[in-house]
């Protein structure tokens, strides 16, 4: 039997970010937090040093930009908003993670239920026919 190279999972199991908050003081903390936010498929809330809070989908981060910044699409606004790293005091993963795999889990559960029901139906027929 041939042995095939096994596919590694595309990503290591991720920590659950939804609901987490990060207070950002150093460049290192900002870089790490915005990388995670860029990878996150839900909305985030930024608390700015000015006191303003903005919520939206963070779709870009430019750590090498001048100045380093993130870009968000805010609910109800057509234009992206760019915010410098230095203006941001706190990052909250406030929105639901749309890549949590729930729809696929539901499909798998549905298929499993169908297979189980079919197996049960066959088993009962076998019993009725005296084969079991």
């Amino acid at each position, binding site marked *: 039997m041939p042995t*095939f190279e096994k596919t*590694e999972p595309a990503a290591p199991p991720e920590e659950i970010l939804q609901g987490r908050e990060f207070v950002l003081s150093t460049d290192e903390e900002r870089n790490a937090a915005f990388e995670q936010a860029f990878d996150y498929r839900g*909305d985030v809330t930024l608390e700015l040093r000015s006191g303003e809070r903005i919520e939206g989908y963070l779709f870009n981060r430019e750590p090498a930009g001048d100045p380093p910044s993130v870009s968000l*699409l805010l609910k109800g606004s057509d234009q992206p908003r760019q915010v410098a790293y230095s203006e941001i005091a706190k990052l909250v993963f406030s929105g639901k993670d749309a*890549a949590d795999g729930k729809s*696929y889990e539901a499909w798998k559960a549905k298929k499993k239920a169908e297979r189980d029901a079919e197996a049960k139906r066959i088993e009962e027929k076998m019993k009725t026919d005296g084969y079991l």
Partner: protein
Amino acid sequence: MALLALTALLAFPFDMADQSVINSPDRPMVPLSQMFTVATYVMGQKLRGRKRYPLVLMLEPLFRCNLACAGCGKIQYPEHILSRRLTPEQCWAAAEECGAPMVSIPGGEPLIHPEIGEIVAGLVERKKYIYLCTNALLLKRKLDLFKPSQYLTFSVHLDGLQEEHDEAVCRDGTYKTAVEGIKEALKRGFRVTTNTTLFEGANPERVREFFNEAMALGVEGMMLSPGYSYQKAPDQEHFLAKKRSTELFKQILGNPDKSWRFNLSPLFLKFLQGEIDYDCTPWGMPTYNIFGWQKPCYLLQDGYAKSFAELMELTAWEKYGPKSGNSKCSNCMVHSGYEATAVDDTFGSLAGFFRTVRATLAPNRPL
């Protein structure tokens, strides 16, 4: 000029068994004008000494889809992002800015876009060859929005026979609806291809059976690719590693049926079977969507550029592709990264040209 036409014929559509692409009047085929346009475009880029040029614009006018396929990592966004769409003007501007002769419209499901008819009409007006990638659930209902044209092809997502396809897209009945859509589109004179992604667990015999069935529908050709291991896809267990991919494609494409025709470069099919070792051409099929120009390719999201020029000039291309050592690229053999490499190989040297000739005329013989 004759050589150019011959090259065009050889490089793009691929009939597995013979040259019936050239001599079969009763079967639909890629129009000569498309082959010629693409061939002259690529030759033009070569003559200008351009190392990096786009071949196909991947235009994603929206992310919303009416399916949630297990292997898709494209549509997992918050509701307000799924509700956003590119306007027709943005789509046309992107096509002009990019300059590629072909435009593929994936998504999301493009037929959900309320202005898709207008978008396509504008691209046809600009003489772009369009592949509108659809799951065809709405195709029958939306066909009136379009006019048959040599510039427009519906590329219908079918991942196998009914059982495999419905399983891949996580909804029963999808195959049947898609086939009805294909039949109706063909009846009305539209160009139609199928578009198949294969994952771990694909049964070569069933895939071959599917190819027979797809060709029997009367489609112009088939597109084929292994799936990419999207980090955000719901199913992380069924992506193909490289070695397994080539084993699978050898089993599927070896001893091909005479009816099979692929809308792919013959060299890409050889690459899938492990006969050529190519590096990726991530700039070959640049992607534009509501976030901008996606870096670096259709599959990976490493940020966005504000313009096509910025994408081409500021992306650190050396960080991508299997030869870069980037782990996200190591198992990727996806069409969007390697078809452009194969086409570039055809036009890049006489050796490449003769490889293409050989792969076309004797697809069963190793290169």
